C-alpha cells in the first residue's frame, strides 16, 4: 500500500477531464442538458416537428384537377374525412385492429404463460427463439406465404380437400361479412394474416409481465382456497394486464397503419393505412392523407395515456 493521502481534501484536478468532471458535479443541469440535447433534438424537433408539419397539412386542401396543394387554411379536408366513405374505412380499420388485438392476446397468452412459468433452461431459450424466429422473418415473405395458403387454389383448400372438409370451408365463406369468394379475398383472410404477423409482438410483453408476477402470489391464492381457474381470473390475469396492454400497443398500432397486408390479402375494401398510402402516393392528396393520420394519432395517443397509467410501459 503506497498511497498515503497527505491531505484529506485532495486538490482540484488539473486535467481537462478532471476540471470538466468537477464542473459537471457542481452543475448537474448542464450535464443533463448535454445528455438530453441530442435525443431531444432528434425526436422532439425532427420527429415531432415532422408530425406537426404533417398535421398542419391536413388544414390545407387539394386542387382536384391538377392535384396541387392549395395552401390556405380550411377545414374542408376534415369534412371530407368525415364523409361516409372515409368513416367506413376508419370504422373498418379500428374494428379490425380491436379484434386482431383481442385474438392475438388470446393466442399469445398461453405461449407467454408457458414460457414464463414452466419453461426452464434450454426450453426457455428455445421458446424465446421460437417466438423471435417468426418475428424477425421477413414480414413481406410471410405475407406472401399466407397468400399461398389462403388462395382459392391454395394450400388450405388442398388440405381441406384431402380431409374431405371442403364443405366446412365453403360454409364459412358463405357467411356474411367474414366470408367471401376465397379466404384470401375475405376479411377472414386479412384477419388471419394480421393476427399472424403481429401476434409475436404480444407474446414478449405478456411474458415479461408474467415473469414479474411473484410465484408466491399464485401460491397465496391457492392457499386461500382459490382454484386454478379462480387464481387465473383474480390474480394472474389482472397482474398480466399491463403486459397485454403493452403488447396491444403494438398489435393495435401496427394494424391501424398497415397497408401491405390488406392489399395483398383482402377484398379491396380500404383500411386506414391503404387510404393514407393511396391519398399520399396514388392520389397525391397530402392534406387528406394527413387528416387520415390524425385518426391513429388520436387513438394511439389515448391508448398510450391509458397504458402509461396502467404501468404498461414497464412491460414494453
Amino acid at each position, binding site marked *: 500500500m503506497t498511497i498515503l493521502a497527505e491531505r484529506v481534501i485532495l486538490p482540484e484536478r488539473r486535467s481537462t477531464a478532471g476540471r470538466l468532471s468537477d464542473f459537471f458535479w457542481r452543475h448537474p443541469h448542464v450535464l443533463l442538458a448535454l445528455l438530453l440535447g441530442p435525443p431531444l433534438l432528434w425526436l422532439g424537433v425532427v420527429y415531432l416537428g415532422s408530425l406537426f408539419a404533417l398535421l398542419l397539412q391536413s388544414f390545407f386542401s387539394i*386542387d*382536384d*384537377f*391538377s*392535384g*396541387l396543394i392549395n395552401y390556405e387554411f380550411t377545414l374542408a379536408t376534415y369534412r*371530407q374525412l368525415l*364523409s*361516409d*366513405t*372515409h368513416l*367506413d*374505412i376508419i370504422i*373498418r380499420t379500428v374494428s379490425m385492429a380491436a379484434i386482431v388485438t383481442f385474438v392475438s392476446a388470446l393466442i399469445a397468452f398461453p405461449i407467454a404463460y408457458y414460457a414464463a412459468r414452466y419453461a426452464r433452461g434450454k426450453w426457455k431459450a428455445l421458446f424465446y427463439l421460437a417466438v423471435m424466429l417468426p418475428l424477425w422473418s421477413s414480414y413481406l415473405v410471410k405475407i406472401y406465404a399466407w397468400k399461398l395458403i389462403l*388462395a*382459392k*387454389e*391454395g394450400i388450405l383448400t388442398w388440405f381441406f380437400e384431402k380431409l374431405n372438409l371442403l364443405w366446412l370451408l365453403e360454409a364459412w365463406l358463405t357467411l356474411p361479412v367474414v366470408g*367471401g*369468394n*376465397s379466404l*384470401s*379475398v*375475405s376479411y377472414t383472410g386479412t384477419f388471419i394474416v394480421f393476427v399472424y404477423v403481429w401476434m409475436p409482438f404480444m407474446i414478449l410483453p405478456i411474458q415479461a409481465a408474467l415473469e414479474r408476477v411473484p410465484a408466491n402470489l399464485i401460491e397465496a391464492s391457492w392457499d386461500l382456497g382459490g382454484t386454478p381457474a379462480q387464481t387465473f381470473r383474480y390474480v394472474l390475469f389482472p397482474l398480466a394486464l399491463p403486459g397485454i396492454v403493452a403488447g396491444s400497443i403494438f398489435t393495435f398500432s401496427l394494424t391501424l397503419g398497415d397497408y401491405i397486408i390488406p*392489399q*395483398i390479402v*383482402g*377484398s*379491396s*375494401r*380500404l383500411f386506414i393505412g391503404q*387510404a393514407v398510402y393511396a391519398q*399520399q*402516393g*396514388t*392520389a*397525391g392528396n397530402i392534406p387528406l392523407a394527413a387528416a387520415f393520420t390524425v385518426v391513429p394519432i388520436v387513438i394511439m395517443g389515448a391508448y398510450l395515456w391509458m397504458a402509461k397509467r396502467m404501468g404498461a410501459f414497464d412491460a414494453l
Partner: protein
Amino acid sequence: QEPLKELGKGEGELSIVTWPGYIERGETDKNYDWVTDFEKKTGCKISVKTAATSDEMVALMNEGGFDLVTASGDASLRLVAGKRVQPINTDLIPSWKTIDERMQNAPWHTVDGVHYGTPYVWGPNVLMYNTEAFKNEPPTSWKVVFEEMTLPDGKSNKGRVQAYDGPIHVADAANYLMAHKPDLGIKDPYELNEDQYKAALDLLRVQRTLVGRYWHDAMIQIDDFKNEGVVASGSWPFQVNLMRSEKQPISSIIPEEGVTGWADTTMLHADSEHPNCAYMWMEHTLSPKVQGDVSAWFGANPSVGAACKGNELLTDEGCATNGYNDFEKVKFWKTPVTKCSQGECVPYHRWVSDYIGVIGGR
C-alpha cells in the same frame, strides 16, 4: 416555360415513370429489350419507376425527381394544368413526322397547339377471360363483369370476375350503360351528369357483389387468374399476352359495347435535370423497332404506322390483333371535369371518393 432550344450532350441518367411492362430491358424475356442498346448508344442510364394507376403517376410527377412519364389521357392534362410537364420542341425529334396522324395532334397532349410530349403506344382495355370457364361460348358483352349470370361452365360468375381498382373504371360502367340504357343519354363515358353518374355507380354496386378483389396491379391480376379462380375481367393486352405465353387458358375480346382505352404520351417533367437524355429517349421510342417491340410485348398499338410492318416480334398481323383498326371504337381515358359538353358534369375527385365508397360496400 420555353421548350428546349437545341440538343446537347446526354447527362448520363434518365428516370422514367411508366406502366409495368412498358419499358423492358430483357429481364423477363431477353428478346424484349429496348433499353440496353439505348443506354449503350447514348450513355443515358435509365431507371424505371412503375405505377399502377394514373393517379399514382400524377402523384409521382408532383413529387418530382423524374424526367419522363408515360401518361395516359386521364393524367396528361392534369400534369399540364399543374405545370408539372414542359412543352417539347418537336424540331429536336426527327421522327416526329412519322407519327400516326391520329395521334400527332391528339387533344390529350396538345393544348392551344402546343405539344407536351410524344405519343408512345395506345390500346384498348379488353375483356380477358378464361377459355375453360367459357368453353366454346366466349363472352361478347361486358355483361359478364357487371351482372350476375351463369357462365358456360355452369357456375355463377359471382366471385369469379374482377374490375380495375381505379376511379377511371366508372367510365367502363358508363360505357356499358351507353349501350344498355340509351335513355340515360350518355354521349361520352367521361362526361356524366348527376343522373348518369348515379346510374353508373348503381351498376358498380351490383358489380361489387360479384367481385372478390379488384385488380390494381397487372401482376397481381395474373396471380388472381391463376390462383383465385378469377375467370373474367377488364384487363390490358399485356396480361393476356403474358399468360398466353405461359400456356394459360386465357383469351380476350373487344366486346360489343366497345371499350375504354388508353393512349399514352411520353411527357417531360418541368424540372427535368436530364432533358437531353429525355429528348434522345423520346426520339428512340418513336423508332418503328421500339414501337413494334413495345406493342408486341404489351399488346398495344404503335403510334408510328411503320411499326406495323416488318417487326419481328409484333409480326405483320400484330397490329390488327391488337386493335389497330378499332381506333374509333376506343374511348380513350381522359380526366372528367366539371365543365363539359352537357354543361355540368361530375368531376374526377368525386369519382375518386365515390369509387372507394362503392368498393367499401357503400
